[in-house]
C-alpha cells in the first residue's frame, strides 16, 4: 500500500512543483506561461488563415459592419455597439481578476472571493452574449439567393439592404413544404424549405422596379458592395437556384461560405476558452471559500488561473480587431 502512494495523503500536502525555481518562477506558473505561448500560436494560426482567406477573396469578402448590426431587444441597425459591449465586459472581468490576485498577495480571503465571483459573472455575461450573437448570425436577418455559380445575391432598396419579406409577394407556386417526420417518409425529416421560392422572388423582383440586387463584389475604391443595374440583376437572378436564410457551415446569406466557417470556428474556439476559464475560475473560487489557499499560505493558484483568464481577454482583443474592425 505504502509503495503506491508517493505523498502521504493524510498530511494534506500538495506537490509544490519542487524547490527548483528557474527565473524565479514556480513550476506551475512557468508551465501556465508555456501553455499560453502554445495556445497563442494556435490562435495565431487560425487568425492568419483567416487573413490568408480574406486576402484571397479581398474583392468579395463580407463587410463586418453590414453583418453584425444587432443589439438585443432593439430594432434597427447599430453596427459594432454590441461587440464593443462584449469587449468591455471581458476587459472588466480581467480587471476584477487582477484585483483578486492583488488581494491574494495581501492574504485578504474575502476580497479574493468577491473579486473571483465578479470575474465569473463577467465571463458568464460574455458567453451569454456570444450565444446571442451566434443565434442572430445563424438565423440571419435579410435572406438572400444563391446562384448556380456560387454567388450570393442580396436585395437593396434605396441603397439599403432589405429582407425578402419586405418585397416578396404572392404565393409560392412549386407547392414545396418542409418534409417532417410525420408528413413524408416515416422517421425521416428533410431540410427546412425556405419561406419563399426562387420563382416567387424572381416574380416579385420583376414586379417592383424599386428593388435592386447587391452583388458580393466590392468596389475597391469606395469599399462598398457593388449594386447591379436592374437588367444585370435580372440576368444574375435567372441563375439563382437556392434561397438562403441565415448561416450554416455550407451556405450563408452574408457571402463567402468560408466567412461563416471562420466565424463559427474562431469565435467558437475562443468562446470555448472562455467557458473552460469560467469552469476553472469556479473551482478556484470554491477553493478560496474553503480556505485552501489560506492554509497553504499563498494564493499563487489564483494568480495562475488569472494568467489564463487574461490570456482569453488578450485573444479577444485580436479577434475583435480582425473580425469586426479591420
Amino acid at each position: 500500500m505504502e509503495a503506491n502512494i508517493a505523498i502521504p495523503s493524510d498530511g494534506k500536502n500538495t506537490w509544490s512543483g519542487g524547490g527548483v525555481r528557474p527565473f524565479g518562477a514556480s513550476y506551475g506558473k512557468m508551465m501556465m506561461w508555456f501553455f499560453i505561448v502554445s495556445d497563442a500560436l494556435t490562435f495565431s494560426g487560425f487568425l492568419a488563415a483567416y487573413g490568408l482567406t480574406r486576402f484571397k477573396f479581398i474583392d468579395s469578402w463580407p463587410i463586418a459592419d453590414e453583418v453584425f448590426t444587432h443589439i438585443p431587444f432593439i430594432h434597427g441597425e447599430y453596427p459594432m455597439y454590441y461587440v464593443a459591449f462584449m469587449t468591455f465586459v471581458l476587459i472588466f472581468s480581467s480587471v476584477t481578476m487582477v484585483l483578486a490576485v492583488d488581494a491574494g498577495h495581501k492574504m485578504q480571503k474575502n476580497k479574493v472571493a468577491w473579486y473571483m465571483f465578479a470575474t465569473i459573472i463577467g465571463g458568464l455575461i460574455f458567453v451569454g452574449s456570444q450565444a446571442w450573437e451566434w443565434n442572430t448570425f445563424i438565423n440571419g436577418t435579410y435572406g438572400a439567393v444563391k446562384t448556380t455559380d456560387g454567388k450570393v445575391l442580396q436585395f437593396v432598396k434605396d441603397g439599403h439592404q432589405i429582407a425578402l419579406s419586405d418585397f416578396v409577394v404572392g404565393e409560392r407556386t412549386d407547392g414545396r413544404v418542409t418534409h417532417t417526420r410525420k408528413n413524408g417518409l416515416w422517421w425521416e425529416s428533410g431540410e427546412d424549405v425556405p419561406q419563399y421560392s426562387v420563382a416567387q422572388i424572381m416574380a416579385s423582383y420583376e414586379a417592383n422596379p424599386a428593388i435592386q440586387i447587391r452583388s458580393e463584389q466590392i468596389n475597391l475604391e469606395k469599399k462598398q458592395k457593388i449594386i447591379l443595374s436592374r437588367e444585370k440583376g435580372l440576368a444574375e437572378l435567372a441563375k439563382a437556384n437556392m434561397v438562403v436564410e441565415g448561416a450554416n457551415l455550407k451556405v450563408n446569406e452574408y457571402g463567402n461560405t468560408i466567412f461563416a466557417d471562420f466565424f463559427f470556428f474562431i469565435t467558437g474556439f475562443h468562446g470555448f476558452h472562455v467557458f473552460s476559464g469560467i469552469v476553472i475560475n469556479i473551482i478556484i473560487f470554491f477553493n478560496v471559500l474553503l480556505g485552501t489557499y489560506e492554509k497553504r499560505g499563498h494564493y499563487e493558484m489564483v494568480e495562475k488561473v488569472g494568467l489564463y483568464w487574461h490570456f482569453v481577454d488578450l485573444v479577444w482583443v485580436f479577434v475583435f480587431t480582425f473580425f469586426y474592425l479591420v
Partner: protein
Amino acid sequence: MAHAHESNVKKIWMVFGLLSIVTIVEVALGIIKPDVLHLTTFLGTSPLNWIFIILTLFKAYYIAWSFMHLEGEKKWFRRAIVWTAIFLICYLVTLLLIEGGYLYDTLAPLVRW
C-alpha cells in the same frame, strides 16, 4: 516576491481606464470610418486599418505587461515568452498573407462577375 506586499490597485484602475479609452476610440473610428483614413492606402492597407492594428498591439502590451504581470518577471523568462511568440507569429503571418495575395492575383481574374 518583491511585489508581494505592495498594492497595485491604483495602477490596475489606471490601466483599465486606458484600455477603455482605446476601445472607445477604436469603436468610434469603426463606426465613423472617416474617408481620409478609410479610402486611402498606406503601406498596403488603409491608414485606418493600421490605426486599429497599432491600438490592438497597444492594448495587448498593457494586458500582458500589467494584468499578466510580465513586467515583474525576470528578464529572460519574459523574453522566452515574448520573443518566441512574436517571432513565430510574425513569420507565420508574413508567409500566409503573401500567399493570400498571390492567390487573389492568380484566381481573381478567373471569376466572372
